[in-house]
């Protein structure tokens, strides 16, 4: 029988805040619970949401009261989180601490403290970073620190893996690639009933979603003069390529009559877009919806034929999978992990520049008008490619690997273990696999001439704090939480 674990997901970003990382953690957690594991989520408190909550299936969320500094990331105080973290870990009897997102200081602190407490740690990276600017250098140094002593790293795409391995000087073998997924039920293409409703401009289209499930997708044929709608759903930030979009929209609309845009999302660049609309008098052809909720994304997507994704950097790009699942033809820039995400018959790639984006959109419109693309089949294909159950299964394998429940040969592959005698990926940079403080220090010492020493001091202070906490708040005084009844319960060893 497969072993099960008690896992704590630590991240600054979680519901009620919407976003990709948030839904990733939620979906992964629920699917892991379906596999019989116990999962708790530790995040910081949001407005009006502090304390301990239970979500569906008994997923327990600790909203730790903390100060928020920037874009809902908590203030990096390194040690202040430790007492409460230790309390939660002990009362929930956590075995594996799984941190998410490189901008989340809570995740990095959680991993550091978990190692001090001798727990297994996993880290998932969701984003790409540069190497050149000052902010990135600092962030990379901190990542290197935090990942000096982690058991395994998960990246959402191969590009992301490459990036993380370089930034944190990791052994590529201790980095796995597990992509994001979508919930296919939430991103169904328009059913025929809905389509007729839409033609009659009925507003209650979403009510029919569940009741009408067309077993055989109907092919929508486009005539040469039928209107084509291009959908853009993204937060309007620089890194999402909004500038590119602003430049490209007038040219696309000029080249292709009978096309229109729907733009959803909000951000600092929305003013530029509005200015562009004013200047070119495109009010009737560009519709701006502002910020929308995640549940509404599907209803916006199914109004269009093409999804345009002009992002400048993207680790995975869940949204293009969602768009493809809704039956949209995807035009996207060839950046980051995006080329890995969808098969070529669903996408048209462009270089991240204005001319090429216009040209690629033109190709996509031509393809659609020629009815060369079977968009109605996309949903089933995406459904088979991406599922959270699969993600959970692969993540579970990582847990098995780091806990020693599957052999190293099986986990890391035969070549890796055969080449160097006594080699293990979890040894990290210094080649020592041990939880002893001195061996942990060796791993941190390699981070840099000055940084290495600084990090060693941090680790030592953390350890002393741990010893102090063991004395001040003894383990025996901490109440043990009863586990939520697990699904297909198995005995833990």
């Amino acid at each position, binding site marked *: 029988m497969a072993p099960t674990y008690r896992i704590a997901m630590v991240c600054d970003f979680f519901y009620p805040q919407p976003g990709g990382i948030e839904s990733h953690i939620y979906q992964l957690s629920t699917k892991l619970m379906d596999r019989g594991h116990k999962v708790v989520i530790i995040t910081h408190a949001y407005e009006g949401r502090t*304390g*301990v909550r239970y979500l569906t299936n008994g997923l327990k969320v600790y909203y*730790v009261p903390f100060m928020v500094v920037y874009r809902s990331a908590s203030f990096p105080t390194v040690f202040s989180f430790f*007492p*409460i973290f230790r309390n939660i870990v002990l009362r929930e009897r956590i075995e594996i601490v799984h941190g998410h997102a490189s901008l989340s200081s809570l995740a990095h602190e959680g991993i550091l403290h978990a190692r001090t407490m001798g727990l297994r740690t996993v880290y998932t990276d969701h984003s790409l970073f540069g190497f050149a600017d000052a902010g990135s250098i600092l962030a990379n140094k901190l990542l290197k620190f935090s990942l000096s002593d982690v058991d395994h790293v998960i990246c959402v795409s191969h590009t992301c893996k490459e990036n993380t391995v370089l930034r944190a000087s990791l052994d590529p073998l201790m980095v796995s690639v597990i992509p994001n997924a979508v919930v296919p039920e939430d991103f169904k293409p328009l059913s025929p009933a809905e389509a007729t409703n839409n033609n009659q401009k009925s507003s209650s289209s979403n009510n029919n979603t569940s009741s009408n499930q067309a077993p055989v997708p109907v092919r929508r044929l486009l005539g040469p003069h039928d209107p084509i709608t291009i959908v853009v759903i993204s937060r309007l930030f620089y890194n999402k390529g909004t500038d590119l979009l602003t430049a490209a929209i007038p040219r696309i609309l000029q080249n292709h009559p009978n096309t229109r845009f729907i733009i959803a999302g909000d951000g600092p660049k929305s003013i530029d877009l509005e200015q562009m609309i004013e200047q070119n008098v495109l009010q009737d052809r560009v519709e701006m919806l502002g910020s929308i909720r995640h549940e509404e994304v599907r209803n916006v997507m199914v109004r269009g034929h093409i999804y345009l994704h002009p992002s400048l950097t993207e680790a995975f790009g869940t949204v293009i999978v969602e768009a493809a699942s809704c039956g949209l033809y995807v035009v996207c820039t060839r950046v980051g992990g995006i080329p890995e995400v969808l098969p070529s018959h669903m996408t048209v790639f462009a270089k991240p520049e204005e001319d090429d984006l216009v040209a690629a959109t033109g190709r996509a419109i031509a393809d659609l008008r020629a009815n060369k693309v079977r968009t109605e089949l996309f949903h089933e294909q995406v459904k088979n490619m991406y599922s959270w159950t699969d993600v959970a299964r692969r993540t579970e394998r990582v847990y098995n690997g780091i806990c020693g429940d599957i052999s190293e040969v099986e986990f890391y592959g035969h070549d890796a273990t055969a080449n160097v005698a006594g080699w293990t990926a979890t040894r990290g940079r210094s080649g020592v696999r041990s939880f002893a403080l001195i061996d942990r220090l060796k791993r941190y010492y390699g981070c840099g001439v000055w940084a290495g020493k600084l990090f060693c001091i941090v680790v030592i202070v953390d350890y002393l704090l741990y010893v102090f906490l063991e004395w001040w*708040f003894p383990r025996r*005084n901490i109440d043990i939480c009863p*586990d939520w*009844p697990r699904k297909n319960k198995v005995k833990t060893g």
Partner: protein
Amino acid sequence: MVGRQEQALRGNRRDIYIPKAKMLTSAPHLYIRRPSPTTAEFTVTTCPRLTLPLRIALLGLLLLRIVTIFLVLLALYTQYGAAITTLSYPYPHFGSSPSASSSPTATVSGRVGIAEPRTATSGRGRKWATSLKRTNSDPYVTIPEPIQLVLLTLASTSLGQSVDGVVSMLPTWAFLAISASLLYIALFRRIHTTESVLVLRGLGIQTSSSSEGGIWGLNYISRLIGFGNGHGHPNNSSMPACLAIGNGGGVGNKTRFIPTAQIQDVLINEAFRGFEVRYYLVVIVQGEEDVVVLFPGLLPNKRIVETVWREVKACLYEQADGTSWQKRGSITHSQVQGGVGEGWNTGPRASFEKG
């Protein structure tokens, strides 16, 4: 621990869990009293079982408090006593009359009523001495002369002198701060906290909290010594003194009654408190925005919380078939460990946060 026979003797009281006493207090532990099937009193206290060494220690502590109060008062008097002195001191080197001032043998700091500069005075003394000329004949406060006499005599003893010597070394603010805090601790600090919940079926829940171990409770002192222990419980002389608080009353005893009609539910919740996540019992009261936390000061551990929750439910609501919850399924340890009961709060309703 407690023998079965003794437990039987004590009849309707049950001890759930008494942790080992630390010095004078113990970790919060629970007593349950069931005078009738429809009534139950749950008491959580930090007061350990009164054994002989503990009684002696507590009495010693009481004595220490009295001595502290006395010393602080004496120190205050040696510094500022002149303001309230109308009596002229019988000894020549001490007193308010300027004629008796020039004696070089004055050792009793001579603050009181000395106008001219002296060798053995501190700054505070001089300040008072100058102002004393005016107030001497007409003090702000008059205290009875016999007491004045006692105080003056005490101040002139070697004890008074040494107190004065120590105090003179401190700056004024430090002296005032120390004496104020010492007085506060000796007078008002209590070492034991007791919180109880009385459940009466058909009527409601009464919560009360009190603290004991100060110098104000005569009941407490008499029980420490051993007189009149127990308030009608002749068998349990070893019960903590605090347990009689419901009957005897105490200083700072706060009670609140919640009628059954207003009780929507009793449940267990979790919340952050300081650096911890604690379990606590709450009563949801109709028409109130905030829930009422039971045992808010002590916040006992999960075992106590869970026991009280089960028994409160059993006592408050009779089952449809006439049996109480308790009879249908006795609480076993495995049950406590095993799963999540129906009372575990899963909703956002009770968001109690403290600290």
